């Protein structure tokens, strides 16, 4: 793919991925077919900061943050256990941002 397009993608979407994965994404994007550009640009990535906000306020304790990033199974488990009796809620404050970035990476990986 064209370097300018890759740079544009990295500039717009870089914040949705882990910083240590950016080199991998850039290398892969440079090597993929031009026809995938539209589909990649149409991908809807979740914002880690928004998910973190949801996790910190009330709904996070009921698993809404997990539902938002597409982890329905763990979301239901968190809902039924009232945030894992508080422990899971605390753990999620620390991991939800990276988990969101991992989910975004999985989404992008399907096209790389």
């Amino acid at each position: 793919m064209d370097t300018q397009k890759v740079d544009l993608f990295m500039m717009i979407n870089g914040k949705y991925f882990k910083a240590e994965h950016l080199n991998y994404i850039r290398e892969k994007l440079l090597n993929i077919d031009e026809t995938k550009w539209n589909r990649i640009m149409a991908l809807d990535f979740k914002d880690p900061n928004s998910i973190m906000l949801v996790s910190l306020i009330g709904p996070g304790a009921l698993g809404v943050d997990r539902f938002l990033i597409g982890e329905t199974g763990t979301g239901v488990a968190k809902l039924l256990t009232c945030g894992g009796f508080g422990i899971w809620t605390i753990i999620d404050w620390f991991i939800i941002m990276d988990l969101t970035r991992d989910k975004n990476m999985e989404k992008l990986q399907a096209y790389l």
Partner: protein
Amino acid sequence: MNNQKTYKVIHQNEYEQAANSYLMTVVGVIAGLPLPIINLIASFCYYLAKRKSSYFVRWHSIQAILAQLILIPFNSIAWAWTLGIILKSIGLIAEYGNDGRHHIWPLLEGITVPYLFYMLFIVLFNIFEFFAVIYTSIKVKKGENVRWFLIAGITDRLCSKEKRDIYNI
């Protein structure tokens, strides 16, 4: 023979993730103060979430678990001892509760000098561990690889050197 070693650069983000494994056990104290095992569970869950991360993050997550694991036998004995005293007192009160006198003495008789010394030791040990964890977290966040005495060696053995984060190049 090529003796040149290649060193992998650890990203700033990885320092933060590794530091969080210690920091989380500290925050876990809020939820788990009456039951210190909660911190261990929280550390273990954090490791499970980070098991596909880089070696540096996994290594520190395991060290954080082991740091919490040291406390478990000591805290469990303290809990068992305290519960034993309370249950014994309840038994005595149930037996002699109808004689019209106050029964605070069975509870106080159970609190012996060795018990008080042990509880003091437990409190000091927990406070020391708490500050040691905070110190480690700060140092790791700055990029220093803090190795705890004895635990670090066990962590080396436990932590797999396999590259699990395939996207990190």
